[in-house]
């Protein structure tokens, strides 16, 4: 199993190097560079521009720039941003990454859980009334013109109903008046940590609980862990970071609308896929056997069919993730969420080469890690790999 993970990781790193190289040369092939930005400023002389180019490492042959760049990249030195000179690209990314991670993680979980559960029900209801409506809804969410959809969501929930804030990730007044010793990112980091810890605990409980001999005991164990985790979460925040709680809630409040909107992108696809996959599974002989045995429908659906249907759905997570990452860029732009996607867009349009590569590379790393996680999940779900690996 470790061997499998190791192999996958090495593969992913190789893919990443190839990707990085391709990106670098692509960016170099574009017309113009940063010093042209100053072309339209009559007060900046050509000498100053040349000086600038030298300082930014734009001199030398392409190969020299490439070698310098790759070397720097793997020593954690992503170079210096042009548009926010002389800020380190790494610092800019470090500042914005937590905001993107929060959005991405919450939206992925939400989309996957809701998509899977509803797809399961949908397959079970095949041929019944309402199926067309639900299918059309699913197709709508998968193919809706996302930026437009996001705008409509903002309009309904932020402007018309006024339930959620729009265009910011915190309430300025709240953060302004408080005497605090930490910044928003510190809160973001802790929120992410908490979510990860909660996720790990709950998944672990799920695994252990399912392997317990008695089904009732297993259920109790799973639910017990869930609640204990929640209580632990509250206690931990109260005890360790009490001063941050109102601020974390403030951020969470601002997270709701973008997260829900973004999760709709993934939701439709996963629902339809689960449905298709369930339909295939339901035709299998063992389902027929289970039904013939007289097992209740719910048990057949949840424990026999759904578990197996999860396999192909998990593979398709990869495609869903790509959707979500793309959707994330649009979400950040429409919701003015200052994360990686927005950074990528503004850096690319300002021809800030290092920041563009940096942001793009980190988005790719995010995708790679997500894929790796999916691979591992798949391995866990598919006994053939689990045993064989």
């Amino acid at each position, binding site marked *: 199993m470790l061997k499998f993970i190791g192999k996958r990781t090495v593969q992913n790193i190789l893919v990443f190097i190839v990707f990085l190289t391709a990106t670098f040369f692509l960016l170099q092939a574009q017309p113009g560079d940063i010093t*042209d930005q100053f072309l339209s400023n*009559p007060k*900046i002389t050509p000498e*100053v521009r040349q000086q600038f180019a030298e300082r930014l490492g734009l001199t030398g042959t392409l190969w020299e720039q490439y070698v310098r760049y790759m070397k720097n990249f793997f020593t954690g030195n992503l170079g*210096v941003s042009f548009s926010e*000179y002389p800020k380190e690209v790494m610092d800019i990314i470090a500042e914005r990454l937590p905001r993107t991670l929060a959005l991405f993680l919450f939206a992925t979980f939400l989309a996957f859980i809701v998509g899977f559960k509803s797809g399961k029900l949908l397959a079970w209801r095949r041929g019944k009334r309402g199926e067309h409506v639900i299918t059309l809804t699913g197709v709508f969410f998968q193919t809706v013109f996302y930026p437009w959809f996001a705008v409509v969501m903002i309009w309904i929930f932020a402007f018309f109903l006024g339930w959620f804030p729009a265009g*910011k990730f915190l309430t300025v007044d709240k953060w*302004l*008046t408080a005497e605090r010793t930490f910044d928003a990112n510190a809160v973001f980091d802790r929120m992410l940590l908490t979510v990860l810890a909660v996720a790990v605990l709950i998944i672990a409980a799920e695994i252990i609980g399912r392997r317990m001999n008695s089904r009732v005991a297993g259920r109790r164990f799973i639910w017990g862990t869930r609640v204990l985790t929640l209580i632990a979460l509250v206690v931990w925040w109260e005890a360790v970071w009490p001063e941050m709680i109102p601020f974390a809630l403030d951020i969470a409040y601002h997270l709701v609308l973008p997260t829900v909107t973004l999760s709709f992108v993934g939701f439709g696809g996963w629902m339809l896929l689960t449905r298709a996959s369930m339909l295939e599974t339901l035709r299998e002989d063992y389902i027929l056997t289970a039904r013939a045995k007289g097992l209740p429908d719910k048990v057949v659906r949840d424990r026999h069919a759904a578990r197996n249907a999860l396999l192909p759905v998990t593979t398709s997570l990869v495609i869903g993730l790509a959707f979500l990452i793309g959707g994330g860029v649009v979400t950040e732009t429409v919701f003015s969420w200052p994360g990686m996607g927005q950074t990528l867009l503004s850096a690319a349009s300002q021809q800030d080469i290092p920041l563009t590569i940096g942001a793009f590379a980190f988005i790719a790393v995010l995708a790679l890690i997500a894929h790796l996680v999916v691979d591992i999940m798949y391995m866990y779900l598919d006994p053939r790999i689990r045993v064989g690996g």
Partner: protein
Amino acid sequence: MTQPRKLWTWLAVIAVFALIAAACGQGTPTETTTSTTAAQSSTTTTEGSTATTAPPAAQGFTYKMGIFNDLTTDNYWAYIGPESEVWNGYVLGSQHPALFTLAYPNIIHVPDLATGAANTPEEQADGTWTVTQEIRKGYMWSDGTEVTANDLVFTYNVVKDFGLGGNWPSTFNLYVPETPDDPATTDVDESAPARDGVTNIEAVDDYTVKVTFSAQPGISMWQNGIGFAPFMPEQFWGPIVDEAKNSDDPAAALYAASGEGEPSAGGLIYAGREPGAFAKNVANQDAYYAGTTYTFYADGSFRQANADKGFDEVYYGDGTGDVTLEYTDGPYAKDVLYSIYGDQNAALLALKSGEIDFMLTPLGLQSGLKQEVLDSPDLSLIANGSNGFRYLAFNMRKSPMNIREFRRAVGCMIDKEFLQQLLQGAIIPAYSLVPAANTFWANPNTEQLCKGLSGQERFDTAMGMLKDAGFTWDVEPQYDADFASLVPGTGTGMKDPDGNPVPEMEILAPGAGYDPLRSTASIWIEQWAGQLGIPAKAVPTSFSVIVDKVFAEGEAAKDWDWYILGWGLGDPSFPDFHEAFFASWQDSAEGGFNTPGYSDPQVDEWAQDLLAATDVNTARDIVHKLDAKIVEDAPYVVLFQTPVLEAYRNTLIFPFTDTLDGLQNLSGLPTSVQMQQ
């Protein structure tokens, strides 16, 4: 099986409630710790004002403004350097004193640190020119130290020694010695002549600055050059500079330092930011000009008086005539908040709800929001002319654009008033290079080519110009009123005076996405040129590509035909841009800014004179002559300018709202704005 699950579910719900309750409990005390210091002195500041008719103003309020991008730096060196983005300027722009400043709204050049009007430079025995200027005593940094001449010397030395880029070299007009060609490095001749400028700045004593120039300095070098150079606090930056000196790249190390905690000598002190969310300034009640009353008189004279600081000064006259405007500066707000919004829609909503009081929009309010503001009882809308213009440029290095009458014929066809109607107020037609709103400098007699003519008249006039210049057609175009606005025109086979066919030409203009105004203009110009049988085609092109093409050097300078872009014009108190845009030595093929490749000995001579001019009236005459001559020759066809629309909450009281480029140009007047109670 279900029972324990339900129980646990309830427990979970209770746990969540506990969390929320705990959070709310946490939340309340933090929100009450608001009112702090700094409100006491604002009462004294209103003493000097005589003509205040304003309603009672709130004390110690927070002036909240919306901005649309995060700051990219909080370091003033970096802001004047590579980070010259407007958002940095809004927050950091009013902390550093200079010898002189501009008094708005009338854009008058007045002393800031200097004790009086600018002295006249004198020639020295060695051919250099020097000027000394006394600075005020008691002008304090917010940390309690005094601003002295040494601060300017310190700043100058850092700029020179570190080779700071961006706007620093032009701010200090550094003297550039002749660069001899070094044949060892390249085979291209890279020698460049010396460029006149500042050769030294020294402090005669703490209160006297002495500047040495390599040649006689004109206004643009002395009064509007060094005169506007910022004084940086040496006590704060000294140690950082010393440390930066030892690094590999001193300039980058200096730029990378944080400006938080830097003392201010202006009305605001930078007070930190939350990345991605907001930035903050607090009022500096001890600022030298805090509580000063400014008076503008109809005869052009200007008075600044402050009883506390013991000065009462009058410039440009005797200060006795009718008062056109008088106001007393604050700061009235105890702090100024700059809250970041992603777009104007969100900011407008915040404006309506009172979350912010004003929006800082460098290009003004989007037209779709105009009606929204007009309809809202809480909001006011103001419109101002902008200090800039959008233009059509011709590549005069090529035929037929090198023919004056050809350019004028195209210019005549362009119906700017029609465009204004088409774009419903989004543009204001412009004819002169200096914006008409800059009344002191604009030439009222600059030609207004074909203004007010009908479509038929324009067509006839333009055809007349082309025929006079010797253009011919295989099929001569006819004016067709029915299809007046639609290509293809009826003319085909246009030939230039030498009998060569006029080639297909491209009009490069930003796409509809980047700028619908210029995009629309380009499409219509294509139509109008087409009516004359001129085969020009609008090509939507991204901004960076246009810039790339039209500023290309060497042979590549011939690779474009026409393009549409715009200029923002910088210092409105001394518009010397004619030199940068049209002097022959500024040819873009050689790295300058004269993109059309325009060359005229008369214009060159005037441009030289303008740079050397030492008094304002001479300079204005030259600008008038330059403006008229260049507009008639039409290397550019000035198209239009865009009004700057701005919205603010009615609770704000601004001393004035009519000002070139709008209130955003003055960062929202953070030190003189008041708020109704």
